[in-house]
């Protein structure tokens, strides 16, 4: 990737962050002719070339799937997610020891400071919000109303989906609007059986996961060098085939093609510079993380896409005469209303039969069971909103040997054969906006670059906990109803807000500047040339995976921004 060569520090637009939404902002703005600077706080990762572990065989990873003590210590927060910073992807997860944060109440903050951010190893599940998702806050008197509706976003969903490439099955369900799909991945035999039983016995819907992996690439994707998913299921290492969408495989290469993109790495935005005279933001002040050199860059508009928590932190740290409590923070809502999705609760079972069924290829995808709670005639007694499930069936492999008694020649031969089928799924539950769930900047403690540390003060409330209980109970009931055996529910007690890695809400959109930070085009109410289009913008959380919505909001906001610039509205 091209490093900033010319000495100029003036651009049409600055995009802060190169991840899921920042990458998309860069693509849209450059394609519309703007000269764009992307500022990435982490190291440079080159698409394909820097996916060091992508083609490593299992035996080439020295510790295989064991977590090193060093990783556990350095990546203490990232490893709260299933000890994920192992040999295969540790280098794509942030060193938490060098980038500390504070927990007044525990918050699981998973970060990826490098080109492409978390889009490098996201779960790729991609779902549109439904109409209700945008209307529920107003109807139920929870939080504030969204300033947009489904129809405002629908064309932008389609636009994003055509570029990204989403594989899935069209179902025509209100609860889960269809996307523009590439062909669905197949379900395996026990999953098809499960799907039929759920509809027959419980009237519950099951579909194959909708996922940003290519199954039939179209010219838009092929022209970027992306090809079909190879069913290796090693997406998180980076895909040398461009089989799944990331900012690195899609948006950034597209932006580079325009010749309008510059990108700088190792550049931490300390603050957005506000100009009291023009009453607009005029640029950003960055600190080079390696040299500590301070630089300023200027632009007509700024897209803030640092990830929900860091975007809010940048606003809070951007203080001026006009904004003593942080840029755009007249409402005191910056940093509040942290939302995420419930994770770490579900059930598992074993399946009798299907022993002559097997699958070739490792599917990087699962089943999706859309929300049924508090939907239509269903009413949960003790909580609002709902949840979806993700999971599926697979055959046990050699590692079942750990739970078996015995060893020796027969044992070894047995483990070389596939075991019985198991079925498992977990819930993704909607968390409600709550102004007491917040993050703020510590008044004293700073990181090694002198930037105040983020303090988290958030926790599940009664609604969330009641929902968790229901997620587990229903998962068990569904597996039992399917006739599966040894059904075991789980609800991991060590899970905190954040672990869903869908953090949202810290600069929410709304109609009223008194209770929200952004307007219906993601502009900061009180500083119209700043657009925040990452998870921070979310007014409620839905229960579906959010990245597709971030990208659609970003494309919509970029379109508005470029028109507004042309018409001298900003």
């Amino acid at each position, binding site marked *: 990737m091209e490093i900033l060569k010319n000495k100029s520090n003036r651009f049409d637009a600055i995009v802060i962050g190169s991840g899921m939404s920042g990458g998309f902002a860069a693509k849209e703005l450059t394609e519309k002719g703007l000269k764009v600077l992307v500022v990435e706080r982490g190291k440079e990762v080159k698409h394909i070339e820097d996916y060091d572990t992508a083609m490593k065989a299992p035996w080439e990873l020295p510790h295989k799937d064991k977590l090193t003590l060093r990783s556990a210590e350095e990546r203490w927060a990232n490893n709260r997610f299933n000890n994920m910073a192992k040999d295969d992807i540790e280098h794509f997860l942030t060193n938490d020891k060098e980038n500390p944060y504070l927990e007044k109440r525990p918050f699981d903050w998973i970060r990826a400071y490098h080109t492409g951010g978390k889009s490098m190893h996201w779960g790729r599940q991609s779902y549109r919000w439904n109409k209700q998702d945008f209307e529920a806050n107003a109807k139920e008197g929870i939080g504030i109303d969204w300033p947009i509706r489904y129809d405002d976003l629908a064309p932008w969903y389609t636009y994003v989906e055509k570029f990204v490439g989403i594989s899935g099955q069209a179902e025509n369900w209100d609860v889960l609007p269809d996307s523009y799909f590439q062909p669905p991945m197949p379900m*395996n035999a026990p999953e098809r059986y499960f799907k039929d039983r759920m509809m027959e016995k419980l009237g519950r819907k099951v579909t194959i996961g909708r996922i940003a992996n290519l199954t039939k690439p179209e010219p838009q994707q092929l022209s970027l*060098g992306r090809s079909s998913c190879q069913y290796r299921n090693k997406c998180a290492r980076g895909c040398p085939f461009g089989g799944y969408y990331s900012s690195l495989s899609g948006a950034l290469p597209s932006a580079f093609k325009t010749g309008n993109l510059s990108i700088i790495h190792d550049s931490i935005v300390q603050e957005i510079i506000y100009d009291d005279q023009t009453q607009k933001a005029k640029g950003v002040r960055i600190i080079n993380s390696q040299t500590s050199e301070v630089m300023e860059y200027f632009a007509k508009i700024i897209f803030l896409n640092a990830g929900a928590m860091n975007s809010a932190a940048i606003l809070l740290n951007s203080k001026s005469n006009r904004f003593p409590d942080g840029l755009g923070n007249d409402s005191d809502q910056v940093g509040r209303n942290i939302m995420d999705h419930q994770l770490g609760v579900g059930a598992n079972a074993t399946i009798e039969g299907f022993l002559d069924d*097997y699958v*070739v290829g490792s599917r990087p995808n699962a089943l999706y069971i859309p929300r049924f709670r508090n939907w239509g005639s269903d009413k949960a007694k003790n909580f609002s909103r709902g949840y979806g499930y993700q999971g599926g069936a697979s055959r046990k492999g050699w590692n079942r040997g750990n739970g078996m008694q015995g060893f020796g020649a027969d044992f070894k031969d047995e483990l070389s054969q596939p075991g019985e089928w198991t079925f498992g799924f977990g819930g993704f539950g909607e968390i409600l906006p709550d102004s007491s769930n917040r993050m703020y900047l510590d008044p004293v403690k700073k990181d090694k670059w002198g930037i105040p540390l983020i303090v988290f003060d958030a926790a599940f409330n009664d609604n969330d906990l009641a929902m968790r209980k229901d997620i587990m109970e229903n998962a068990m009931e569904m597996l039992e109803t399917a006739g599966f055996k040894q059904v075991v529910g789980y609800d991991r007690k060590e899970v905190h807000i954040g672990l869903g890695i869908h953090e949202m809400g810290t600069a929410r959109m709304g109609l009223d500047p008194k209770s929200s930070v952004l307007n219906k085009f993601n502009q900061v109410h009180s500083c119209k040339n700043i657009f925040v289009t990452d998870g921070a913008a979310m007014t409620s959380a839905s229960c579906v995976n959010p990245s597709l919505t971030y990208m659609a909001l970003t494309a919509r906001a970029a379109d508005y921004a470029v028109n507004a610039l042309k018409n001298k509205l900003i």
Partner: protein
Amino acid sequence: MNRRIAMKYVSTMLGLAISAPTLSALDKFSQKKLFNQGQKANFLSSEEFNMLEEITELILPKTNTPGAKEAKVAEFIDLVLADCYIEKEKNIFREGLQNLLNTHFLTLTMSQQISFLQDIEIASFRNRNLSNETDFWRILKELTLLGYFGSEVGIKACFDYRPVPGKLENVKWEKGMKMIAY
């Protein structure tokens, strides 16, 4: 056949379009150094190590496929104990080995050795119902299986290794098929 040629072959077979940058990168991947290299640990003494080798071979012996010794399972265990296990677990494991050394395990006949290990396993499974605390046998067996079925020798002997399957297909399992490893 280097990886690039192999990939060209695979992609032609499957009729897939693999881009030039992907192909050129595949060439370079084999030289990529890992973030976590893993150094030879020498955590165990040579006496402990030699006995561990014999025990892993009893757990996964050479049959028509290679055994744990050939897959260098003890070396893996030595490395992982050093790099991944906390002090308490390290001590549990070492103590387990020392107990066996004290009984002169290696001087026993093979059938005595096997019944000795069976006793340890039975006790371990009994403990599992009472407590979540790990024990010598649990660590030993888990790492032996991981070390073997995650090794090049083990994977290539026991499984059908397909690093780039290129397709996803429901099939019928038939006798003589091998589990696929990815």
